[in-house]
């Protein structure tokens, strides 16, 4: 099959496309201004609250630490359940009362140790994640700051250039008027042979 046939078969909608069908932009400067305004409005509507919530989480999130006690209790309960079922499966497994008590003691001790270890691990991890998120956000913020300063610089340069061009044009106009006035005066002097 020829390439053109593939194109026809795969992209029937875009095959006859022409740039003449594009919307005319007679004033690119105005279009650019509109797009810039629109983009900023979209950002405010769609992402500002998301960004603020993320900054808040990076500063104050404690979800990992909050979950640790719940996890320790739950896992201890699961392990206890596994042990009870196994003992029942083996018909008591020949365990003496003392051995059974020791198992209970070990489980309780582990529950407390697990809670302490889980809390310590979670605190460290939480701090690490919050710091890392904050660092990423600051990085993004710095990028935004850089590009906004750059845009501001361009806008300010353009404004300064326009102001300077206006001043030059004004000075040039004044000197032109003075020149024209003086040559009219010179002509009048010559004409009337003063």
């Amino acid at each position: 099959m020829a390439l053109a046939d593939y194109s026809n078969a795969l992209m029937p909608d875009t095959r006859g496309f022409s740039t003449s069908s594009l919307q005319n932009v007679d004033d690119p400067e105005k279009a650019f201004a509109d797009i810039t305004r629109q983009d900023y409005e979209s950002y405010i509507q769609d992402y500002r609250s998301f960004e603020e919530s993320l900054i808040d989480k990076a500063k104050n999130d404690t979800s990992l630490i909050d979950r640790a006690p719940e996890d320790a209790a739950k896992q201890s309960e699961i392990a206890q359940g596994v042990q009870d079922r196994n003992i029942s499966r083996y018909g008591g497994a020949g365990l003496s009362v003392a051995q059974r008590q020791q198992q209970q003691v070990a489980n309780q001790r582990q529950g407390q140790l697990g809670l302490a270890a889980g809390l310590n691990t979670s605190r460290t991890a939480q701090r690490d994640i919050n710091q890392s998120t904050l660092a990423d956000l600051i990085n993004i913020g710095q990028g935004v700051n850089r590009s906004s300063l750059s845009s501001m610089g361009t806008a300010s340069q353009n404004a300064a250039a326009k102001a300077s061009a206006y001043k030059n044009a004004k000075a040039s106009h004044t000197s032109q008027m003075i020149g024209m006035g003086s040559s009219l005066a010179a002509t009048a002097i010559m004409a009337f042979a003063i």
Partner: protein
Amino acid sequence: MSSKPKAQDYQASEAEKTQASVAKAEKDYFNQTYAPLLREMRDTASQEDLGGVARGVAGADTMQSLTGQGPSLAGTKSVDQAADLASAAVGQMAAASAQGLAASRQQQTGVLGTARGQAGEAMSGLAQASRIQNTKDLQAAKAKQQVREAQTAAAVNVGTTLFAQGAQNLGSGSSFFGGKTEVKDSTNKDKNIERTNTLADRFSIGTYG
């Protein structure tokens, strides 16, 4: 004298207008196609519970590692097996929660970075959340379980060999532990006499029967 400047001479050229039209079309296409995708990603990154996924994987890993071989009598009799299981599971859960949260945050900052025109993070949060490292608690519990199983296997092995050898010793007219042998005498004079086997006798019996 030059003529008065004409406004049309200062308007955008045809090339500039075409460039602006194409750029506008591209921008509209982006707004229609990619902007909704990014908003969708924002919602996914906000709502998706990657911690839950990671915790599920961690729980399955822990149980598969420590209870996957089925229950054993030695394990059931052990004082600390359940405690080890709980300890490993708590460690794994903490690691999984942290991994899930880190993946969520990375996804969220990635979306925000893209929305703010900064570099986005291409890595899928879900893939990252599933890659949970085994915690040292799980490894320790697993190692302990393996040692316990190996000890049981060794004890069973020694016991079986001892029983088999004892039975063989009894069968060959010696005592169970092979310490004494009944003296065989064709004259039947010393029929019930036993003698203590030396190390050389034991080696000879063990090697040649």
